[in-house]
């Protein structure tokens, strides 16, 4: 595992170590900060200039509208959340869709007419107070969904995170199937209609700022997104804020005591435990935090689509999200954002656009959306062959992937 190097001088590493240690001090690189600020500003203003971009010849047809951007951002948010589990802590989770589903159904339960037998309103916007069912403000629901999913994550994590590597992947795969199955068949849980089965639950209430804030700002802030003329824009800005919060938390965690512990576990579990890191607790936190962001994304997306349907929660989504993480670069937050946006775009409208273009301009009758998972698979194969560390590699991880990481059990025996 080690190469005893005879030379007294260690190889220099292009300043990587120095950079990693600078992160510890919370040091910020001013140039990096400027780039981040510019990207955020460009993103915030997107609704105001995307139409001009769409008029540009050649590329214009490939510029996504604001509505598509919302979906891309939701996927990106989940990819960044999954990256905490897979990228930081090195736990291969193939069942992330379960958290997405749990979040969506939290919104469906607490912001729709599903439970007609009750009537409870708390900060609901844009609907009659006489409407039956539970109607909490979407902002509260989103937070509740995150916390609920986190609890689900801990519940699933405690028994499964004792497993390593492949075994963990298989069990999480199982849970990723169990929850959607449960949702599909949950219309008769001991006689109680919990999920409305394959029909799903809709409509789900919309987010909004409510009457008081809306009136006070002269309707600059919409009372309810769904009823606003700027519906797509407001969902877009909200999604963007959620992504930014996710990224912020994710970066801060990476550079914290907990983040160090995750990386240590990824590198060598036995040594990490011997350094006083409680393996179960630390891994469960990674899992639970990943779940939190999945739940928030699920609840927000359900509110955007105004419904939660079991057909949205197939295993494919878990793999799709994992593809985003791998394409972008395991453990690299910026890479994962890029991976999420690229694959999200192809999924939402990119492939369809390409299909139309092929048909119109080249006369080729080929519809790439029919082969979408084949195409994503091909992308991953190509990435693995030509750029195994992803589009924007995490610098630390880059070396691991290029040289392999050692993680066998102590002396090859486990008990």
């Amino acid at each position, binding site marked *: *595992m*080690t190469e*005893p*190097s*005879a*030379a*007294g001088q*260690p*190889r220099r*590493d292009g*300043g*990587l*170590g*120095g950079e*990693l*240690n600078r992160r*510890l*001090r*919370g040091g910020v690189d001013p140039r990096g900060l400027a780039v981040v600020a510019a990207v955020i500003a460009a993103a915030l203003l997107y609704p105001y200039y995307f139409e001009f971009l769409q008029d540009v010849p050649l590329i214009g047809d490939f510029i996504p509208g604001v509505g598509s951007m919302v979906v891309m951002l939701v996927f990106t948010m989940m990819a960044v959340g999954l990256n905490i589990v897979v990228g930081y802590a090195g736990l291969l989770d193939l069942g992330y869709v379960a958290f997405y589903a749990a979040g969506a159904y939290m919104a469906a339960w607490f912001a729709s007419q599903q439970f007609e037998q009750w009537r409870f309103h708390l900060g609901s916007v844009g609907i009659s107070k006489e409407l039956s069912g539970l109607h909490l403000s979407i902002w509260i629901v989103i937070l509740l969904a995150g916390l609920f999913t986190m609890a689900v994550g801990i519940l699933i994590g405690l028994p499964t995170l004792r497993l390593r590597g492949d075994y963990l992947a298989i069990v999480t795969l199982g849970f990723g199937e169990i929850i959607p199955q449960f949702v599909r068949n949950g219309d008769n849980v001991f006689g109680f209609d919990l999920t409305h089965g394959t029909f799903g639950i809709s409509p789900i209430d919309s987010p909004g700022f409510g009457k008081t804030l809306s009136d006070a700002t002269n309707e600059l802030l919409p009372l309810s997104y769904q009823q606003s003329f700027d519906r797509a824009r407001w969902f877009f800005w909200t999604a963007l804020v959620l992504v930014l919060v996710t990224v*912020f*938390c994710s970066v*801060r*965690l990476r550079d*914290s*005591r*907990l*983040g*160090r*512990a995750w*990386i*240590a576990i990824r*590198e*060598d579990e*036995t*040594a*990490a*435990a*011997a*350094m*006083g*890191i*409680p*393996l179960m607790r630390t891994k469960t*936190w990674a899992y639970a*935090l990943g779940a939190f962001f999945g739940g928030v994304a699920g609840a927000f997306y359900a509110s955007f689509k105004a419904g939660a349907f079991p057909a949205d929660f197939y295993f494919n989504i878990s793999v799709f999200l994992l593809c985003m993480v791998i394409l972008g670069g395991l453990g690299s937050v910026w890479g994962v954002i890029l991976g999420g946006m690229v694959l999200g775009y192809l999924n939402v409208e990119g492939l369809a656009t390409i299909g139309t273009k092929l048909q119109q301009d080249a006369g080729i009758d080929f519809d790439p959306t029919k082969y979408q998972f084949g195409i994503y698979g091909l992308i991953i194969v190509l990435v693995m062959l030509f750029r195994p560390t992803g589009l924007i590699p995490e610098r*630390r*991880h880059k*070396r*691991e992937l290029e040289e392999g*990481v*050692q993680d066998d059990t*102590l*002396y090859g*025996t486990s*008990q």
Partner: protein
Amino acid sequence: MNAGDDILSATDVRKEFGGLLAVDDVDFSVPRGGIVSLIGPNGAGKTTFFNMLTGVYKPTAGRIEFADTDVTGKPPHAITELGIGRTFQNIRLFQHMTALENVLVGMHARLSGGIIRSILRTPGIRREERGAAERARELLRYSGLRGRDDELARNLPYGDQRRLEVARALATEPKLLLLDEPTAGMNPQETAAFTDFVAKLRAERELSILLIEHDMKVVMGVSDRVTVLDYGQKIAEGTPAEVQSNERVIEAYLGAGAASA
């Protein structure tokens, strides 16, 4: 020696792997502030014994007490938290972390940063992290790794990797330090320097040290007491001089008949 003076005591500790008896009812103790060596031929059960002390393995039977607390079968992180630090026979550093980060991981149990406070990066957390980094740098210097803070662990020369393992173990703030063949693979100069370092550790840091070692020069040089294991059994115990002249020990190392020859 009465029990109150021992920082670590193991009573009738036994480990079976299926049909293999790796450690056979061994009694063992480390006096407070002492340096004890555990020696024996390859496969004698030394490392298995070590792994029971640190919680990697659960003993099949017997009891282990550390600082008057029963630690039998406790998980490794809990034992580290109580104050047993260790190194590994085959170096197990976090290869893709810097020397400084490795030491900081060692401080895990001594720091408090939780999720919410880490995300908000409160002044308290900033202070804690700054203090930790400062102590980590100091430990690196103390362990002879001056100027290596920013080096990735895997890029350090072999001797420095061994030193970094010790620095990382010291970061857990141990009362008892377990070193598993720390000089394996070192050249004579490095070994001599390391032996001095071990003596210095005890003198300056009020540590008790338990050493697994094959190099007899090291063992005889630093140990107060030596315990010899063979086929999982304790065959001798005493001062280095006593053990050196013990017939069973010579037999175990050189084969039957060697003692009388």
